[in-house]
């Protein structure tokens, strides 16, 4: 058997084991509820618009754009990757199961990578259906031409979500592998640093992941508009490349930390 096939089997086993671990963790109910909340918001918006419950200046596509750029990209993706990313190693340490993984003839960085793939996969599984359902709920039943016309933007949104998951997932995996109070550190970054810095003038904004995501979002909601009013967007190519590079950098650092760090499993 080729070493590639062997490595793939190891990846797959680690990934499935991690998906199971994450799936059975208490966080999953919470995370699933948040994902459903996005769909619930879309349903509510659709009802309001259809039955004119309140006078609204927005069209369904505008609601979808706001939902995407605020609730999905800046909240749902960040929240899920934060909770699952920081748990990749810490959940195994707290559950005292890390011993079983680290005593296999697999380099620890491979274990980290397998776990990261699981994180990306499970996050996609939770986020993508929410986006697609929201799109269907808000677009179907009105102008079908618009439904097909905006599918390009939907595809772009999904691509941006994948990039966001890759970058945030790698960052939170790094924080989880490195720090003891990783959830707190992750929350501070996500809602402290990223909540303030993008709205400050100057180049400091380039030290946030959200800046590169805002730069390529096809929709302009208020938050994005304010941020872009203060400073310029980065170019699409620069943004995409930076997000990919950040993911690679964070993941490499996380792998290095996992390889060198001693995780104390208390008896």
């Amino acid at each position, binding site marked *: 058997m080729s070493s590639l096939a*062997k490595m793939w089997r190891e990846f797959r086993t680690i990934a499935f*084991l991690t998906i199971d671990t994450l799936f*059975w963790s208490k966080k999953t109910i919470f995370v699933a509820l948040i994902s459903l909340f996005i769909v619930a918001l879309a349903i509510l918006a659709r009802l309001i618009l259809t039955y004119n419950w309140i006078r609204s200046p927005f069209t369904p596509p505008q609601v979808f754009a706001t939902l995407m750029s605020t609730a999905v990209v800046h909240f749902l993706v960040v929240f899920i990757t934060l909770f699952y990313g920081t748990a990749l190693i810490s959940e195994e340490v707290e559950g005292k199961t890390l*011993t*079983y993984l*680290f005593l296999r003839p697999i380099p*620890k960085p491979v274990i980290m990578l397998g776990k990261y793939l699981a994180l990306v996969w499970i996050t996609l599984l939770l986020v993508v259906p929410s986006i697609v359902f929201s799109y269907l709920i808000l677009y179907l039943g009105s102008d079908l031409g618009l439904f097909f016309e905006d599918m390009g933007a939907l595809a772009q949104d999904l691509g941006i979500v994948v990039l966001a998951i890759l970058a945030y997932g790698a960052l939170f995996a790094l924080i989880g592998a490195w720090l003891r109070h990783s959830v707190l550190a992750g929350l501070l970054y996500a809602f402290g640093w990223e909540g303030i810095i993008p709205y400050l003038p100057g180049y400091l904004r380039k030290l946030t992941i959200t800046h590169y995501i805002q730069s390529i979002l096809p929709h302009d909601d208020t938050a994005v508009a304010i941020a872009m009013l203060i400073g310029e967007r980065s170019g699409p190519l620069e943004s995409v490349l930076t997000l990919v590079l950040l993911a690679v950098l964070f993941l490499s650092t996380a792998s290095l930390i996992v*390889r060198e760090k001693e995780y104390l499993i*208390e008896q």
Partner: protein
Amino acid sequence: MTEILEASGLSKWYGQVIAVNKVSFRIGPGVTGLLGPNGAGKSTLMKLVTGQLRPSQGQVALFGQRIWNNYPLFRRIGFCPEQDSFYEWMTGAEFVAALLRLHGFGEAEAESRTTSVLELVGLADARDKKLGAYSKGMRQRIKLAQAVAHDPEVLVLDEPLAGMDPVARRETIRLVRGWGKAGRCVIVSSHILHEIEAMTSTILLIHNGQVLADGDVHQIRDLIDQHPHHIFIRCSEPRRLAEILFRFEDVLSVRFEPDGRAVTFESEKPDEFYQRLPDLLLRHQIELEEITSPDDNLQAVFHYLVK
């Protein structure tokens, strides 16, 4: 002796706390008992020899190679951890098979090895039961199963008999001895001398992170016999049992536990005590609920050796 495992000047500390202090030893094929009271440094030493921890000072080598982050070496090591932790949602078979796949075995090979090893540890009937529903003894045996499933040359077993019922304990002791006889290097830890003695006569005595004695268990046994041995028994009729056993000369004292359902004996000949106990219990129809050997006597030996 062909050395498989060798430690020289091995130390491990956590901040200000020294867990293992300049330990040197050589271990070859067969069973070696790692004996010491709780907190002596046994588990830290086991984690060092299985590459879970990096030495703070000194060296530890397996087959002449350093262990920390030496992944190919893990093919040759099996480890049974002390902690009672699992992926609770998995069945016993899924757990062992998943870990075998991480050893590079294909689906079919992992499945066949899982079946064999579960039979070996007596869990064939419980293979499809969730680990969360396993009893303490079954959980001990599944840990043992995952440690031996890939057929390692070195087995490190941290308190493998803890929580096992007498039948499983006897069977596990038989397995450990068998693995030792087959030429595997088996390191087994316990804080109970009788457990170790049943598996091997070669021991490594550790206390406060230091090796106090290294060699034949009989030397320790002689020391032990100079110190009265405590035996805690919980049974249906502790007062009657005390009355029966107190007639024997080796029983020095009897102390009833506050709940009135257990009694602790002090004997200067523990072997004779343990030998006669089953017959007496049967003859007088006293139901045994629990029998443990607190390590006070071992502690006394440690104090003696330290002095």
